[in-house]
């Protein structure tokens, strides 16, 4: 059994439901950028968060490297 095999029919139905309508895409992009900026600003506010980022301790990557 391939653990990373795609299930085309399932994925197609999900994609259909998950697709952002064309006329909403720009608004979603704007809001996402604003939220990402505020998230990054919050992460820079405290030195301990910056330490965790410097050493990749805030992501699952830290366990893999």
């Amino acid at each position, binding site marked *: *059994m391939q*653990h*990373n*095999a*795609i*299930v085309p029919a*399932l*994925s197609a*139905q*999900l*994609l*259909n*439901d*998950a697709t*952002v309508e064309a006329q*909403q895409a720009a*608004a*979603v*992009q*704007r*809001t*996402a*950028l604003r*939220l*990402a900026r*505020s*998230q990054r600003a*919050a*992460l820079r*506010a*405290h*030195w*301990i*968060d*910056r*330490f*965790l*980022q*410097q*050493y990749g*301790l*805030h*992501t699952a990557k*830290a*366990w*893999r*490297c």
Partner: protein
Amino acid sequence: MALLTLAEAYLRIPDRATATALIAEKLRDGNWRSHRRASDSWRVNGLTRALIAARALVTRAPSMAWLLRPGVALSMQLLGRQFVFGCDIGQALRRSRQPAQRGFGFSYDMLGESARTDADAQRYFDAYGAAIAAVGQHADRRGSSSRNDGVSVKLSALNCRYEPLQRAHAVPELIEAVGALARAARERNIALTIDAEEHERLEMSLAVIEAVACDRRLEGWDGLGFAVQAYLRRAPQLIDWAAELAQRCGLRLTVRLVKGAYWDSEIERAQQLSLAEFPVHTRKCVTDVSYLACARRLLNAAALMPAFATHNARTVATVLQWAGARRDLEFSAPAWHGRGAL
């Protein structure tokens, strides 16, 4: 990796000699020089210099690693605060005061392993009861419970035989335990959310949720909720099931959409059992798509109160766009792994 394993293992080591050996080994493992002057924070750069110096010390004289123990213990405490909100509910409530003034609400979860004995399960039940009482002290008894903080419970903490082969015993016991907690939460008008766990326990958890949701003693309370994991291939059907249940029982059920935290063990378990299919999506990108598909389904289900747990800015933006003028949504970002606060 060296820092993470040190952080995880250090506090569990009971004797000083082993703790010293672990410090020496992990500090030798790290390539701290590659982080030298890499940050624009003087504190972070100072810590990197300290790590470089400590590595030099333990490389030359491993037996001197004991000198580093107080510093390591302090560092672990600092790191721990980023991962755990409070050591007990009182500390967590105190720490929540400042963010609460900025409009944040909290759902308190307890870290811990599953109950291994009846005594464990009783201890967790009492702790959940105490948490409900403590959170309820500050709750507004009028209006929707979603305006107040809540408590999240894990069924595996409430029963030491929460496993499919013990369903006949475990499910009635869990219905009794969760029902009692739900009545306590209703009395204080706070939310009670049942966390999602491994897929093989899903059917049992649904049986518990259904029985508690249909309990007439909870009438008029809108605080019952449960988590749905978007990585489950059955996630869309679970949302449909929740909507049907809410309509049948005449209550507003909260569904908290999460991505799912047991991916590795789900894959391992399916492989051990030689199942024909995995219960979870095996690619992260498909889980992301599933999350959005489930979010749309949740927003369209009138009987459900949608709650979204995610750190993904684009996902939040998409849900906000789809929600339009709706303002009864909850967004939560688990405050661990040093992700900061939005």
